[in-house]
């Protein structure tokens, strides 16, 4: 701390120094990482909201029972486990030294309460809960989960890295009903939340939690020891990506979570700035149709859309023509996942306006406009609408593209009404790849009709297969089921994969030891003077 205050005093001589160009936020606060995140933090309940910034927030202040290593295998994090012979009962044991930020020890009862609350909301959690007969805290350190039949779901669920992750909070907090956002920020993670410096929508500060006891294994994905090597991490957001890039170049910030791909040339070759592509933080584009409204209640039309759309133009528009940061991919669960599959790859990846036209002619499409919702205020979604519209028009569809902010899309896509009453035919969005690579948890493939995600596809076979995936612990068997799901999803037009794009972190070259994981995490990171 001596250094810090010494530096700041030295640098105080104000305007003159500033005018001479000695502005350097980095030097003043050597032990602080200032990170510009993709979205501002405005709420603090990481369980009821699927907003990714809240997932990232969760990883700062909470810990998870298990965690995936870089290869995607569940590993112990807070707890280790044993499976009974019959594969039906899992016994978890918390490791020593775990305490909450308020000083209370973490107990099995806290875990049970937290997992219970989480599994009311999370899709994977719900599946797990439906298979589970019992979850009890045996003592302070131990809890058990018992299932009706052998399953690997417990490990998948408790190591779920993204979407809603099973963060462990004090039992009293976890008792909050899911209809009510929690306001507590007491976790047991490697950072603690500095409530006094929290400015919703502007910045959030995380201080190193000195009492945190990391695992001894080296950091590996989300697994391994979470060793914090800086004093604090400050998250901010900047509404203007130009500004954040300029700020990074002038040393005012250290880390930029999402770098606009088109601006990478500006920082390339700059020795002060490093970039890295994080495939696990990439996203899959998808197009969703409303199965309950004409014309997409008719599978022929959905087939026509699948054929009409091609992936490359959308990826080009998002990250640049021929960019290395994108990849056309036909697999429903993502090309980087173990469920990678090239079923009907050509039809999915490339546009076939003629084939699509032929189908439209066959069913006698009368030119009724397709209402496509286009979100304009999010950088990755903004390019999607015009590209989809252009491709559909090429194939003979009439498209009525309605531009609105994301809040309006989110509201309108929930409507099952007719077009005249505020309904819709089609929208597009992205999901992060870790969420996609999960046949149970991926909302884009759920096809249970009314209970399915917006668009409400109803393909009972898919639902049966998803349950089957959950009910087996055999990975090969799971892959087998997943491929069947993939085929059914494509053939029924449940969703149309539109390619993958990868996230690029840009950061000061002073930072080393960044972890490659499903979310941007700040343990293990060192900052050079």
């Amino acid at each position, binding site marked *: 701390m001596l250094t810090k205050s010494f530096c700041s005093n030295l640098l105080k001589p*104000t305007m003159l120094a500033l005018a001479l160009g000695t*502005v350097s936020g980095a030097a003043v606060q050597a032990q602080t990482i200032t990170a510009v995140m993709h979205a501002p933090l*405005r709420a603090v309940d990481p369980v009821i909201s699927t907003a990714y910034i809240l997932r990232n927030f969760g990883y700062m202040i909470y810990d998870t029972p298990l965690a995936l290593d870089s290869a995607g295998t569940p590993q112990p994090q807070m707890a280790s486990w044993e499976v009974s012979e019959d594969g039906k009962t899992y016994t978890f044991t918390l490791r020593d030294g775990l305490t909450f930020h308020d000083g209370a020890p973490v107990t099995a009862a806290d875990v049970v309460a937290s997992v219970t609350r989480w599994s009311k909301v999370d899709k994977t959690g719900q599946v797990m809960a439906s298979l589970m007969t019992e979850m009890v805290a045996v003592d302070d350190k131990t809890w058990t989960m018992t299932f009706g039949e052998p399953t690997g779901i417990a490990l998948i669920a408790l190591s779920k890295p993204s979407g809603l992750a099973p963060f462990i909070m004090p039992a009293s907090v976890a008792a909050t009903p*899911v*209809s009510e956002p929690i306001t507590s920020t007491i976790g047991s993670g490697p950072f603690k939340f500095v409530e006094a410096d929290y400015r*919703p929508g502007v910045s959030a500060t995380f201080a190193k939690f000195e009492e945190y006891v990391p695992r001894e294994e080296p950091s590996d994905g989300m697994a391994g020891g979470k060793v914090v090597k800086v004093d604090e991490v400050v998250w901010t957001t900047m509404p203007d990506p130009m500004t954040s890039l*300029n*700020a990074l170049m002038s040393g005012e910030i250290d880390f930029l979570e999402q770098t606009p791909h088109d601006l990478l040339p500006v920082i390339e070759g700059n020795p002060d700035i490093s970039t890295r592509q994080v495939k696990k933080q990439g996203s899959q584009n998808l197009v969703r149709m409303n199965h309950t409204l004409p014309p997409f209640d008719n599978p022929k039309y959905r087939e026509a859309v699948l054929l009409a759309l091609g992936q490359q133009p959308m990826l080009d528009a998002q990250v640049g023509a021929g960019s290395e940061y994108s990849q056309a991919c036909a697999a429903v669960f993502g090309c980087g996942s173990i469920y990678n599959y090239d079923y009907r790859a050509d039809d999915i990846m490339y546009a076939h306006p003629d084939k699509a036209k032929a189908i439209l002619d066959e069913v006698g499409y009368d030119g009724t406009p397709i209402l496509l919702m286009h979100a304009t*205020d999010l950088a990755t979604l903004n390019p999607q609408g015009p590209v989809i519209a252009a491709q559909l028009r090429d194939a003979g569809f009439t498209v009525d593209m309605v531009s609105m902010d994301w*809040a309006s899309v989110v509201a309108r896509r929930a409507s099952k009404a007719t077009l005249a009453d505020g309904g819709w035919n089609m929208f597009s969005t992205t999901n992060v790849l870790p969420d996609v690579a999960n046949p149970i948890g991926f909302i884009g493939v759920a096809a249970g009709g009314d209970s399915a995600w917006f668009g409400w596809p109803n393909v009972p076979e898919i639902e049966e297969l998803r349950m089957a995936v959950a009910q087996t612990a055999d990975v090969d068997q799971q892959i087998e089921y997943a491929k069947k799901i993939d085929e059914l999803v494509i053939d029924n037009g449940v969703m149309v994969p539109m390619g993958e794009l990868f996230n690029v972190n840009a950061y000061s070259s002073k930072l080393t030891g960044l972890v490659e994981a499903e979310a941007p995490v700040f343990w293990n990171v060192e900052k050079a003077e």
Partner: protein
Amino acid sequence: MLSFVVKRVLSAVPVLFMVAVIVFMVLRLSPGDPAVMIAGPNATSEQLADLRESMGLNRPLLEQLLIWLGDIGRGDFGTSLVSGKPVTELVMDRLWPTLALSTSTIILAVAVALPLGVIAAWQQGKWLDRLVMAGSVVGFSVPVFIIGYVMILIFARKLGWFPVQGYKPLSAGFGEFASRLVLPSIALSFPYIALIARIVRTNVIEVMGEDYIRTARAKGQTERGVMTEHALRNAAVPIVTIIGVSIAMLISGVVVTESVFNIPGLGRLVLEAVLARDYTVIQAVILLFSTIYVFINLSVDLLYGLFDPRIRY
């Protein structure tokens, strides 16, 4: 005077009531609600219904309006639907950056525009006048974000004189505070310099045609004396008016400037709140702006009296 102030403050009440009702209705009739924004992109319908229930969003509109108005009447602006923080706390936190930016902008604009306008009036019809006037039209014609980008590029990136972005409170030291306000204030002040300089010029020219200016000259007053002792104070009323108007207009520029220079002010707060449908925050901020507007008008009226003894309250 006091009774005038009391009367004006009271007359602001129906205006603010009108604002409250208009804003409330505009927001509630818009698609999207905060529940979906809180629950995130993959939330299910049941989750949403539960959230709405707990946030009181499924009550009849009129009931919501009356509850809200009642709360305001008691000085309670509620909590942010998104962050759960008290709205007053959020707004107060964001108020200072905006206040600092607006104040420095207006001071800068007046400090530059007043002499420019006087010089232009003095040199009426000559090349200096034309230059100032042409420059002022250009000031109107370039969008503020472009001015902002160019200033960042030149003064922050190329010359490194000022930070690119951000805001530091005064408590962090005057240098830290001021250095971050220089570029945004300059960028934001352009149109107001243009506007105020024009008004100053026009009014000074008009006043210079008045009989009492002729009287002053007939007394043997110098041209400088005519300008400083007679013309400026008489031109002050419309100039004060336009400065008041400028402050009221500032908000649109503030929203943009805060974005470009990453200043965590009210403009950004309300913009983000609109995108997230955080009703309580939007309502409170707009009401705050309207209140400021009303009170600026009141202060302008009171200032009239300072400059013109004919005006009494």
